[in-house]
């Protein structure tokens, strides 16, 4: 029954094929996002509520001393803006992974996984697509924030871009890693509560770490070990044309670990294989 000869099939893939595939996946993700207008609106409303209401209320309570990268006293709104940008990416990363769980349940994920291109590359494209969508949201937020007098130096809008790509990839790959372990869509809400809220609140997004240290040294260390803190700081420094090297290396390292974990988790001999086919199929 075994054959010793093979019918020719072109080996490997050209650079153009890889780019075409990436374009296709990003294009599809952007289309889906634009079709879901309510998703776009809710993605913007969330940080704006924090900015317009929460920050206005806490402005008088939380004083911010001069800390890098700021060179002068700043308003609380200015301080939390990078944290809110990272929050958009955190929610988007989790939302993308939620859509992966949905796609897997609905069967759409199979279309992606049976592509002949390397599976690791396909998942990387999926992550890049999610990050691209998060960038649309972040820059829309920055436009509104600018109207609210949050005006980083003009060059900051450009220098923040690589930091946003990196943090988007880290948070997206974390979401993908989590989604690979979720069997059903219903289980996702619990994971959101156990991941998003602890990550967001135990970070420097809302208050500087020296303030946290004053209140609770233990929480300070938790915040220091939280990758989200470093995503926030990377964005904060980049928005002012600077780089926080510690945050940079932490984010790069975490991105690599989460991404490798996510790719391994979607490996056919691991992730999906343990669970068996979808309901009703055998």
């Amino acid at each position, binding site marked *: *029954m075994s054959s010793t000869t093979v019918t020719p099939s072109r080996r490997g893939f050209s650079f153009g094929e890889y780019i075409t595939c990436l374009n296709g996946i990003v294009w599809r993700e952007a289309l889906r996002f634009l079709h879901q207008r309510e998703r776009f609106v809710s993605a913007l409303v969330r940080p704006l509520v924090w900015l317009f209401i929460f920050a206005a209320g806490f402005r008088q309570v939380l004083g911010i001393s001069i800390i890098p990268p700021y060179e002068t006293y700043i308003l609380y709104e200015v301080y939390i803006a990078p944290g809110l940008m990272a929050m958009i990416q955190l929610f988007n990363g989790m939302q993308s992974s939620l859509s992966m769980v949905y796609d897997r349940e609905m069967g759409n994920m199979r279309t992606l996984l049976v592509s*002949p291109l390397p599976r690791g590359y396909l998942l990387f494209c999926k992550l890049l697509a999610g990050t691209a969508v998060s960038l649309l949201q972040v820059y829309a937020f920055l436009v509104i924030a600018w109207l609210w007098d949050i005006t980083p130096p003009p060059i900051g809008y450009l220098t923040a871009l690589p930091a946003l790509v990196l943090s988007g990839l880290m948070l997206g790959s974390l979401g993908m890693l989590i989604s690979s372990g979720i069997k059903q869509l219903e289980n996702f809400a619990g994971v959101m509560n156990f991941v998003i809220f602890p990550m967001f609140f135990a970070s420097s997004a809302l208050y500087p770490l020296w303030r946290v240290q004053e209140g609770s040294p233990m929480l300070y260390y938790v915040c220091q070990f939280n990758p989200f803190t470093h995503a926030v700081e990377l964005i904060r420094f980049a928005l002012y044309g600077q780089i926080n090297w510690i945050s940079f290396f932490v984010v790069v390292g975490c991105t690599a670990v989460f991404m490798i974990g996510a790719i391994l988790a979607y490996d056919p001999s691991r992730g999906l294989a343990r669970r068996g086919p979808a309901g009703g199929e*055998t």
Partner: protein
Amino acid sequence: MTATQKPIADKPSPDILMRQDPAGVAALSIESVSHSYGARRALIDVSFDVAPASFTALLGLNGAGKSTLFSLITRLFGIQAGRIGIFGHDISGAPGEALRLLGVVFQPRTLDLDLSVTQNLLYHAALHGIGRREARLRSGEVLARIALSDRAGSKVRDLSGGQMRRLEIARALLHRPRLLLLDEATVGLDVKARSDILNHVRQLVAEQGIGVLWATHLFDEITASDDLVVLHQGKVLARGQVSRVIADTGAQDINTAFMRLTGAVGKAGSEAS
């Protein structure tokens, strides 16, 4: 014959061998494949070939292991034991080469309902590295072939079940594969839509020389000249041309032959249509 008995055909039948391509390569070669979900064994030492330009029906009741086998062939699951080759390319060792030659229609719908018909095709083309211009050209061709040109801009959720299935088949053919897998492709469709799809797939075999593996539990989708693999409780009970399997079991028709092979009179009766 019971599920534990020896399969009727241990080796590929001569008629299958005759229809192998000049290089002697089977379109699909399944060799001693086994798969378990924990303690539950879904496939047990499954072996068979699908010849190029042939229509092979994979017949089995629900739960026979058909979808597990499809997941292994498409590399959604890793192979635990055995080997699967597509035109000689090992699905584990050379997945890219193997998957290039393969088109798949899964049992659950895998179209993106919120995208248009054309957008779904373009997305699939991109996943195979086909550039936008070429993809648009091919999309136009396949839509014309399945008589859906006028729905090119419609959202997929506005299509009927039969149109969605036809679109999935068209999508599976967009990258010009040489082997097509269809897993219960007509489930949930009305009689006319079923007949249209079956005729379309048989036409692909006759006109384009595509090898087809058609998983089904419906006897009326199988004709005497088809190749047949009977899968029951994870084991291959019979394989060969349908007429030969019927003759070997001493039955008059495929329905009776299947019942004799599986001993599943009651169950099979409910699947017959």
